[in-house]
């Protein structure tokens, strides 16, 4: 078991390196494809009045004139050992793990990211809770009452849910509930949970519901399909034949079996969401990682992009890992 965990963790680290390397290559090449030179990139880090010589010097200081693999190596080194950045008289020390220093905002990337992480986490966690409960519950009831009015209505709504783009649902919800009826918070509201938990929940209510609606719809469908499959299996018939009460059959045996693939997907979805719920955050103007990453990409801010991709990938990979480990615990066949 220990060996298995170790192997998976090594694989995870490797995967992380590959993803960041690929990201680095892509975002390194992207501005160059558009015709930018190292001096151009350096010029973004100084004021307009700097002379070409100063700009060139800064390009050298920041290492933009080095080949790509050297710059990538520097990035990895910074991750492990920290780094120093200087544009002349001032030198900034960026402690490990250093994800980079964005001179556009004059801030190291990691603290900025960590600042915004709670927002995305709040959004993801709250939404996830709601969608898991709502989705699974609906799916189970639908499966058990297959063909009933509830089933048909619920699956109809679920189908609508997965067919709606979230930015449209978000805008609609904002216009109806926030601006027309005035019962939910307007766009751009966010209060940290330590400041005022009630206000925090109120501000996030609409984003949670919008986000959850989309996922709950998908999970309801999945759960229903899974339950229907499972309930047709032999072991269910056996359980019933043994005389177990129906609710035990359904919940303890049926649901548990049906839930496994659901949990796999849940882990992945949550991991993805933590990496930045870009569309939801854009629609509701929430200051989380999603918005941060879109700004970074649009403005070609390589350190920020790397930081965001790294953090996002870590979440996804960790989610994968956790799910795989859970499988290994539950199913001994996996551990070979």
């Amino acid at each position, binding site marked *: 078991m220990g060996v298995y965990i170790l192997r998976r963790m090594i694989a995870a680290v490797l995967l992380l390196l590959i993803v960041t390397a690929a990201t680095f290559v892509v975002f390194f090449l992207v501005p160059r494809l558009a015709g930018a030179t190292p001096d151009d990139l350096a010029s973004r880090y100084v004021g307009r009045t700097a002379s070409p010589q100063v700009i060139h010097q800064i390009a050298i200081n920041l290492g933009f004139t080095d080949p790509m693999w050297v710059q990538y190596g520097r990035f990895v080194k910074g991750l492990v050992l920290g780094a120093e950045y200087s544009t002349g008289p001032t030198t900034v020390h960026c402690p490990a793990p250093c994800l980079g220093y964005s001179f556009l905002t004059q801030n190291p990337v990691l603290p900025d990211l960590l600042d915004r992480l709670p927002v995305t986490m709040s959004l993801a966690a709250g939404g996830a809770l709601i969608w898991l409960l709502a989705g699974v519950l609906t799916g189970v009831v639908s499966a058990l009452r297959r063909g009933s009015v509830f089933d048909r209505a619920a699956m109809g709504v679920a189908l609508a849910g997965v067919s709606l783009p979230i930015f449209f649902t978000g*805008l609609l919800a904002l216009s109806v509930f926030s601006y027309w009826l005035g019962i939910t918070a307007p766009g751009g509201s966010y209060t940290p949970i330590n400041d005022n938990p009630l206000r925090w929940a109120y501000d996030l209510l609409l984003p949670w519901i919008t986000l959850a609606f989309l996922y709950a719809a998908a999970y309801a469908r999945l759960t229903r399909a899974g339950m229907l499959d499972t309930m047709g299996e032999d072991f269910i018939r056996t359980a019933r034949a043994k005389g177990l009460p129906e609710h035990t059959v359904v919940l303890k045996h049926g649901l548990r079996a049906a839930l496994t693939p659901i949990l796999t997907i849940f882990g992945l979805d949550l991991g993805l969401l933590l990496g930045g719920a870009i569309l939801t955050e854009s629609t509701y103007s929430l200051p989380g990682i999603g918005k941060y990453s879109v700004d970074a990409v649009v403005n070609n801010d390589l350190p920020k992009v790397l930081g965001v991709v790294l953090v996002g990938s870590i979440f996804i990979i960790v989610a994968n890992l956790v799910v795989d480990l859970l499988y290994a615990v539950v199913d001994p066949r996996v551990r070979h």
Partner: protein
Amino acid sequence: MGATYDARVSGPERDGTAIQGRSLWQIAWERLKRDKVALGGGIAVVTLMLVAIFAPVIVAVLGHPPLEFHYDKVDPDLQVPRGHFGGISPDFLFGAEPVNGRDVFSRVVYGSRISLLIAFLATLLSVLLGTVLGVITGYFGGWVDTLISRTMDVFLAFPLLLFAIALAGVVPDRAFGLTGDALRIALLVFIIGFFNWPYIGRIIRGQALSLREREFIDAARSLGAGSPRILFAEMLPNLAAPILVYSTLLIPTNILFEAALSFLGVGVRPPTPTWGGMLSDATHWFQIAPNFMLFPGLAIFLTVLAFNLFGDGLRDALDPRSR
């Protein structure tokens, strides 16, 4: 049960005519015909495709050119379309855009071309890549499987949207002999299609894995068939059903993806109308010109819904276990 028994008694042995065994496709078609909802979805899909293909005709008859400005439809002080609900009238079926008074109906109709074209082509690309790689992986196993599976993992660990945004932002004006809209569409097709192949790849791999253990594969091999022949003649036909189903289900995902990219400003360039782009513009106006937000949004919703309904029905019809 009874029918089969009767067939044996009253069938070919008695009449001398051959048995009409029903293939998977025929069974599926029967089932599909009976599923009214899926059929409805299918009809909607065909209708939408027709709308997209005949957009110029529809717009010529029912609306105004999509790029044409109509300042007279817009209040010069408030920049809002005159009239109720965004200026809906027999002339402007969905009303007019704020500021420039463009015909929302025409733009929505033309927007369908972009959405459907990109979604279809991207799905095609994903399916091609995913099927080829999935089959190879599933059939050969071993190190090929490990390599390609890990590659799929890497793809799935990427923040897709970010990469799409970045790549869509770089394109030069001229490449591969294409320019302008054509180039951007090609780029979007490539990005969406290329990054989505693991979705199909994983499924096909799973199917291929289970298929290769089946007797007919062994039989083919023992008859001396080489791997390529087995792959193409034996496995692919049996994979046709899942390929079809998941392609149909991938299309709505791609429609949503393209809409998201346009919404974030990295799709096709203005002034070409796209549903996502119109929604993005509408975010500034939805409180006083709701038509601008509603119609493109509904267009996306209905299109995706139609494909989902049809895809669901198709999957149910082709799945031997269902019902």
